[in-house]
């Protein structure tokens, strides 16, 4: 009952992502403890943090892949607990692994996932996203034969296929060169309905600052610094960046 009431209250707010009291541990190892986060609809949050700081765990929790021990997550007013399928439909996810079938071609991979999402106009959508990530000429190649970067691009295409309102990106820049990122970036930011809400985890300050509306540093499962890109003190940011990411653990 409590959940239902809280849920209907949240729905009226213009929040893209809202996380309350989130805890996740793996056996005895606690990764996130009483974690709170809010992100306005249409904003892009870039989360910096060292390996093991909980970035991937956070993204997997937001994407319904992990089940929280405690706490609630709402994405566009849907609770991961109550409406996981509605959330899965509204998010696009890019993780470390490209999540592809190696023995299927680019087109077949996209067609399979498109069918799983029960999308209409699938052929148009597929040629559209393949164009966005510049894989049109590789469309009939098996995923196995693609380079690491191309697999990453195909993975991004898969995440964009159902035109989600929310994107969850885990180091999307790995394997992609600067030119490619600049080309793909704009397609990530906007859906057909407006600006996408994006949570992105990265080590890379250059691409992170370029894409961010807001930045946050995650350390040992808590946010140690958060600022909007506009009011952010660059000097302070770089100090924290050095402290959090570049000093030896």
């Amino acid at each position, binding site marked *: 009952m409590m959940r239902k009431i809280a849920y209907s209250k949240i729905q009226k707010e213009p929040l893209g992502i809202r996380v309350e009291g989130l805890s996740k541990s793996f056996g005895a190892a606690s990764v996130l403890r009483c974690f709170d986060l809010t992100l306005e609809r249409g904003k892009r949050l870039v989360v910096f943090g060292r390996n093991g700081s909980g970035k991937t765990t956070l993204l*997997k929790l937001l*994407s*319904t*892949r*992990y*089940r929280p021990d405690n706490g609630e997550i709402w994405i566009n007013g849907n609770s991961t607990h109550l409406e996981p*399928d*509605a959330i*899965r*439909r509204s*998010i696009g*996810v890019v*993780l*470390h*692994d*490209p*999540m*592809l*079938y*190696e*023995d*299927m071609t680019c087109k*077949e991979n996209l067609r*399979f*996932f498109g*069918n*799983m*999402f*029960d999308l209409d106009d699938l052929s148009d959508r597929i040629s559209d996203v393949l164009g966005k990530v510049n894989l049109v000429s590789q469309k009939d190649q098996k*995923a196995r034969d693609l380079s690491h970067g191309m*697999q990453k691009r195909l993975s991004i295409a*898969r995440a964009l296929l159902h035109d989600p309102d929310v994107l969850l990106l885990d180091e999307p820049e790995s394997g992609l060169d600067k030119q490619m990122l600049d080309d793909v970036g704009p397609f990530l930011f906007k859906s057909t309905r407006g600006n996408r809400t994006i949570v992105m985890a990265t080590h890379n300050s250059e691409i992170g600052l370029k894409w961010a509306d807001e930045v946050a540093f995650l350390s040992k499962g808590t946010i140690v610094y958060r600022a909007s890109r506009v009011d952010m003190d660059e000097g302070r940011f770089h100090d924290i960046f050095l402290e959090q990411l570049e000093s030896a653990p």
Partner: protein
Amino acid sequence: MREFIRPIFVIAWKDIMLELRTKDIMVSALIFALMVIVIFNFALNITPATVEYLAPGILWLAFAFAGVLAMGRAFIAEGDKGSLDGLLLCPVSRDAIFFGKMISMFIFMVVIESLVLPIFVVLFNFDSISFNLIGIIFLGTLGFATVGTLFSAIAFNLRSREIMLPLLFFPVVTPIIIGVVEASSGVITDTVNIIGIGRWVGLIVVFDAIFLVVCPWAFGVAMEE
């Protein structure tokens, strides 16, 4: 209803298409099943006089071993590039994913069995194939595929999964192995009355029914990290 059924067939069709392309599962499992039969021939000295008596055991061991080999591969295609994560991020129920994988597993096993059975008939002049026997094979394979899909999903995430899958699988399917061997033997030798056979078929059906409920649930739990 359509929302539930549709992804099942999308997944099963994807598996079948991948299998037709790579033939990873079928060829190795089929050859393995034939090898089991050949080895049993030498180990047990199968003659026309004894074939009716030995056939159920040999056939089901061949099916079970080939099945375990095939199951071991069922989730490997899902794992190479993290595609299992991709599958789990689709807006479909976990049960649908389980049944999709289970149906493709069931079809692979039925195809292997329908190739092994005629070869067995030819090799041993075995002429006791009947619709009843095929029905029993069908029911037994359903139970195998159900339990096998769950354990191959679990074993997939374990170290030394090749050895863990049979260790998990065989003790749990003990009742069904006893059931199918006894029922097949009753049908083939035609010595046990219909009630005797019906009891075994009943056991297999109960096993299938229980695990068709338990395994999708357990799959959901296993995949929910």
